[in-house]
């Protein structure tokens, strides 16, 4: 059937949380009411990436992008745009409020600088319909591999492309496949790491929600390359939409004979099962993930033996991350030279980042390696809200570190980030402004690792706890001379002796904040002062007597009655009662209350 218009509605987690399902229902109902349900097709897609402005609705052929659409807005879009052909300007995604021209999605600043390979189908196709994936050259790469290439040739292409693991480590993918292809075994496994635990990173979820078949196809290709006929996708239980769509995708792939026995009439067979995580960050570590798939406590085991020789159930196994897999079909179809032509010398291709925190355009972006942090934050991310000053960006989550303002022009790639004391990680990029305290941020990440440490090895189990306690002491104003040195010593020893990646990288947030913001630590310890005004124990709310009009508003707002005074005379705050909630400062109409 031919449709004159297509309405694409984002069905990612972020937009679903702001009622995109309701919006779809409204569209379907109103199209029917206007008798144009045979002319206009509504498609629920994956994430467009611009989560900040969600829910997003795009109407083709015009390419009109509507942002922050509510179910009530649908009526206007249907009656004005779809019936009368007049674009609803007030809902258009404009870069500035004043701009009222219609723009194709590709021309919006947020999308213009992106290069979408892993996200090529996200926000474009209906992820619950395999035919839409096939129409976008889906499963063509698998067909090509199975009918025209030998396993060694496949590995060679991946090696030549320069693709490195997108989950964090950055290990060359082709090399990993080659290692696993060597051993002789009666059974091998292909695993997919979709246990995206890094808080603030959600690219893997978006790929699974928006383009699940790209991962399935790539796993089958990997299976052919190493000689495996069984795959497992280990996905977080916290991602219900992703799990549902994966299940639908697997079922459809089996029905179409793209998974199962004798795929494309060859003697290659491959099948995939889903395993749900159960909320353990350490299960993102490869050996822990495999232990968890085996149905045990997800504790890591020492390497060697490496999974390429003894992985899942002691059989040769490869484990790649979702985003890594999503690149594979495109590399097979376009050739390794195409892929290695993008990016920097040692980091090829693109990387998806989830930008969040103090940034205007929170969302998902895919950029060529080598793009600078400045471009990501200002050109794509739209800068920092409320004209605050950029302080640092945190990459790599609890295993990574921060990039300070004076390094904002560094091209982002694996090696540059490592050199700066951070890491690529899975791609979470949290922007912080002058209101964020770096000691507090380090404490936040340590709290995370203490909580998520599996407890198997003492350096991580005890060491991270000790580091956390020191940070707690410092932020509570009990820091003393020698604390920084103690932190540094602990960090060095934990890095050297922890069993797995979680422990070995746990000190990174401390080391990196110490490297760039040592003065903040020192202010906390020696001056008992939190320069950003975050650490409660170190700040006081005070009333400026010259500005206070004595209106009593703050005194009435104070939940603990710490403020007293006489009407029309300056009030004052009793510091021994004050709980530092900040309610008074928000209430004051004269700006008389400040944090010191």
């Amino acid at each position: 059937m031919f449709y004159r218009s297509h309405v694409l509605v984002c069905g990612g987690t972020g937009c679903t949380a702001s009622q995109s399902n309701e919006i779809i229902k409204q569209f379907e109902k109103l199209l029917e009411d206007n008798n144009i349900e045979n002319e206009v097709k509504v498609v629920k897609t994956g994430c467009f990436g611009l989560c900040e402005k969600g829910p997003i609705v795009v109407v083709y052929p015009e390419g009109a992008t509507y942002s922050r659409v509510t179910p009530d807005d649908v009526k206007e879009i249907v009656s004005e745009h779809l019936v009368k052909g007049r674009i609803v300007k007030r809902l258009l995604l404009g870069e500035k409020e004043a701009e009222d021209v219609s723009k194709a999605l590709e021309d919006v600043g947020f999308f213009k600088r992106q290069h979408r390979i892993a996200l090529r189908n996200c926000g474009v196709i209906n992820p619950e319909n395999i035919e839409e994936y096939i129409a976008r050259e889906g499963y063509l790469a698998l067909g090509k591999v199975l009918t025209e290439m030998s396993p060694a040739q496949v590995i060679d292409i991946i090696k030549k492309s320069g693709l490195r693991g997108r989950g964090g480590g950055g290990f060359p993918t082709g090399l990993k496949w080659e290692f696993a292809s060597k051993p002789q075994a009666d059974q091998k496994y292909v695993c997919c790491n979709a246990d995206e635990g890094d808080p603030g990173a959600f690219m893997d979820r978006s790929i699974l929600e928006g383009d699940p078949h790209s991962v399935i196809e790539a796993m089958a290709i990997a299976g052919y390359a190493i000689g495996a006929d069984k795959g497992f996708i280990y996905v977080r239980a916290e991602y219900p939409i992703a799990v549902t769509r994966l299940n639908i995708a697997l079922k459809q792939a089996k029905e179409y004979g793209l998974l199962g026995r004798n795929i494309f009439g060859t003697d290659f067979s491959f099948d995939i099962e889903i395993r749900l995580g159960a909320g353990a960050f350490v299960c993102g570590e490869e050996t822990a993930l495999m232990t968890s798939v085996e149905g045990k406590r997800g504790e890591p085991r020492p390497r060697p033996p490496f999974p390429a020789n003894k992985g899942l159930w002691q059989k040769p196994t490869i484990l790649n991350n979702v985003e890594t897999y999503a690149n594979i079909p495109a590399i097979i179809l376009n050739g390794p030279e195409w892929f290695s032509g993008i990016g920097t010398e040692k980091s090829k291709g693109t990387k998806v980042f989830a930008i969040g925190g103090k940034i205007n355009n929170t969302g998902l972006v895919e950029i060529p390696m080598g793009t600078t942090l400045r471009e990501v934050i200002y050109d794509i991310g739209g800068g920092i809200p409320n004209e605050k000053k950029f302080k640092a960006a945190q990459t790599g989550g609890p295993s990574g570190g921060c990039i300070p303002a004076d390094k904002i022009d560094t091209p982002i790639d694996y090696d540059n980030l490592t050199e700066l004391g951070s890491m690529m990680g899975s791609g979470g990029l949290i922007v912080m402004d002058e209101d964020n305290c770096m000691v507090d941020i380090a404490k936040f990440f340590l709290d995370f690792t203490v909580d998520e440490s599996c407890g198997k090895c003492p350096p991580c189990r005890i060491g991270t706890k000790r580091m956390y306690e020191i940070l707690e002491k410092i932020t509570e104003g009990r820091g003393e001379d020698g604390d920084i040195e103690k932190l540094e010593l602990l960090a060095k020893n934990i890095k050297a002796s922890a069993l797995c990646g979680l422990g070995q990288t746990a000190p990174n947030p401390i080391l990196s904040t110490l490297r760039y913001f040592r003065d903040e630590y020192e202010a906390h310890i020696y001056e008992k002062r939190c320069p950003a005004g975050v650490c409660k124990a170190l700040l006081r709310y005070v009333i400026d007597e010259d500005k206070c009009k004595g209106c009593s508003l703050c005194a009435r707002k104070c939940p603990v009655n710490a403020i007293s005074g006489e009407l029309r005379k300056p009030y004052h705050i009793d510091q021994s009662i004050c709980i530092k909630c900040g309610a008074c400062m928000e209430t004051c109409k004269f700006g008389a209350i400040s944090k010191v």
Partner: protein
Amino acid sequence: MSCSCGSTCVDPKAQELQKVIEKYKNTKGAVIPVLHEAQEIYGYLPLQVQKTIAEGLDVSLAEIYGIVTFYTQFSIYPKGKYNIQLCLGTACYVKGAGQIYDRLKQELGLDKDGTTKDGLFSLESCRCIGACGLAPVMMINGEVYGRLVPDDIPGILQKYRDAE
């Protein structure tokens, strides 16, 4: 769980659990999927349920208990009627999720994650739920509340109290 009335009636939940165990009996690495489904059925994983699973899958109760307590998704305590999950992921944290957490604890009379005395609410701090565009975010029984400020909390809780 068995009842003590002495009659031969069967607990529908126990029946369902048996079906789940049958389904996974011959699957490699079945324990975690079974625990997930058991928690769906009961809302949490009381000792008796763990025992049934241990017997059904022929693994020791100690191993089951070890797994249940290892993963944060599994709970051995019943949850409140309304389960509040507050995201304490990085994006939410830098946007003030800590203050939301303090306010929730204050309003619910809890000093950390837990269930209120009347069993109406349980509070659970969780890792990123992936709605970073709406930070700071919380979910109450799956319903998402975004772009929160501490003063939103009393009103939201009241909505659920009023529904009682």
